[in-house]
């Protein structure tokens, strides 16, 4: 899952980004409204964390322009401006959730997870597909026979994305977009390496290769 973090306070952004990466997200950052608007339009993010008081262009305007442009990515507003009038305005402008500063990271993480679940059309907090249970807190996966398997950061992100869209063909490009950060080396061969490692851990038959199209995570064995 790849997130866009828009926050102009550099130190705070560093902190949040680090925590989000630890939680298994790929994180791109923008520290002003204009960059944020541009990055958001790329449509490759699974969620956006948006501060409102931004240099360049106010956060609310960025959000409105995204929504007017048809961008449906869930947006969580993370701001110091948390009067109810501002909350209402923010949510009316197209935000999906609103969190006031200061905050605990667990709260932010929980809300982002909830947004992602909602946008993938899931109701239950645990990601479970065909006997595989993804433990998002500890970044492990529990197999149908109950054994737990450790995952590296990239493996976890890749598996989570695959499990979020079971039985759908996901192109290599799309997977790369949602698993890696913007400045990462985007060699599709690297992705193949990770897919192979995942297959070794969860079972070869789970991830099907569709030649020329991409990969598919099978919910039925």
């Amino acid at each position, binding site marked *: 899952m790849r997130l866009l973090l828009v926050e102009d306070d550099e130190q705070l952004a560093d902190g949040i980004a680090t925590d989000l990466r630890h939680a298994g997200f790929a994180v791109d950052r923008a520290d002003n409204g204009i960059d944020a608007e541009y990055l958001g339009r790329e449509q490759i993010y699974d969620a956006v964390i948006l501060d409102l008081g931004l240099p360049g262009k106010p956060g609310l305007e960025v959000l409105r322009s995204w929504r007017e442009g048809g961008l449906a990515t869930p947006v969580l507003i993370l701001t110091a401006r948390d*009067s*109810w009038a501002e909350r209402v305005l923010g949510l009316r402008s197209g935000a999906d959730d609103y969190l006031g500063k200061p905050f605990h*990271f667990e709260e932010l993480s929980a809300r982002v997870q909830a947004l992602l679940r909602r946008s993938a059309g899931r109701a239950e907090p645990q990601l479970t597909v065909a006997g595989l249970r993804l433990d998002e807190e500890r970044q492990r996966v529990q197999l149908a026979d109950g054994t737990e398997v450790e995952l590296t950061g990239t493996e976890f992100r890749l598996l989570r994305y695959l499990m979020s869209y079971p039985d759908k063909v996901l192109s290599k490009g799309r997977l790369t977009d949602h698993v890696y950060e913007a400045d990462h080396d985007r060699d599709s061969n690297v992705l193949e390496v990770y897919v192979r490692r995942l297959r070794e851990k969860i079972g070869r038959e789970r991830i099907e290769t569709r030649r020329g199209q991409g990969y598919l995570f099978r919910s039925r064995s």
Partner: protein
Amino acid sequence: MISLERRFVTGLATTLLAAFALLFWGSITAVRSLSEAYVLARLEHDAEALVGALWVNPSGQTRLREGRITPIYQQPLSGHYFVVSLADGTEIRSRSLWDETLEVPSLMPGEVRAYLGPGPVGQRLQLRSAGYSKGGMDFSLTVAEDMAPMAADIRRFQMFALTLLGFALLAIVLIQRYVVRRGFRVLDEVREQVRQVSTGQLQQLQEPGPLEIRPLTAELNRLLKQVQQRLQRSRRSLGNLAHALKAPLSLMTRELDRLPLPAADGRRLSEQLNRISVLIERELKRARLAGEGGGQHFVPRRQVPELIQALRQMYAARGLDISCGPLPDAVLPFDYEDMLELLGNLLDNACKWASRRVELQIALDDGMVIRVADDGPGVPEDQRAPLLRRGSRLDEQEAGHGLGLAIVKDLVGDYHGSIGLARSSALGGLEVSVVLPLPAHHA
């Protein structure tokens, strides 16, 4: 209270009344003196005619030639009398005197006296006595006329004049009142606009009004604008301050969460940090409040559904049923941001504690009555009063709950309202009711 209209009309009526009284008195005096002069002139003419009719008969007696006397002096008690007093003491009296007598003076020739005196059968007479000398004979002649018919004429004239003046006074006052009212109708428009500003239908006065009050309306508009701008400016700068303060606070919260501190130390630090956050939050929110008479007005039908929608979105994951009763169709003179803060905090609290349902009711009575109920665990009766006391935090397990209620209390205080906690009879949880009186000028 001063009513300009009443002042104008009473001032005018008083002035007119004084002027008319003077006019009336002047005309009555003039009429009376004119009629007296007229009577005297006629008496003088009659006297001259009588003197001309006097002759001495062959037997040496002084007589009047009957044919030359005006018949009115012949009719008994006609009101026209004369008495001729001869030097030898005999008197020749008009037949109209019948057997009455008149006290008449004896005057030297050339002497004339005009006076009022009693006459027969209670008549009041104007008398004219004069001394004459004719053919070597001296005598006095008194001619008299009853004033009663003249007095009756004057009274009739008085009545007529009074009626006329009365009608004129009434007509002028009515016309003037109409003119003044028409003049004030321009002010009525301004007054209506001021009312609309106070109830929030208007932000500014549009009608500048007549020249006389234009400085007033212009100043009012300027002040209205200034209040709005100040509020906006201070809210903006508070927003900036909040923004600036909260980034480091967030960072400190994060660092503290990650530091490998002994549990007790961590808790202590985290408590302190939480205190700072809550304090800043509370004071910033307090400072944002517009309070009575400030800001943009509250339109429940417009703003409450948006708030409900926002809350539904925020609590979407829990699938809460947040419902809202019928909203009053009104523009209320409360600042809408304050009201959103009030309702938002109440509803947010309710949502945190509710298991499935939250219900909002807003009604207009003497004031605005807000009821927020949930189906959560509620608050035991003995803990309700402490919860309402300033600064208490019953519920540290749910972040911001205590703060939310503190802000609500601040707001209710600012608007001179009242707040009450009870068990919701419909939902079983806590029901918070807030009553905000409408400002007096609203009516």
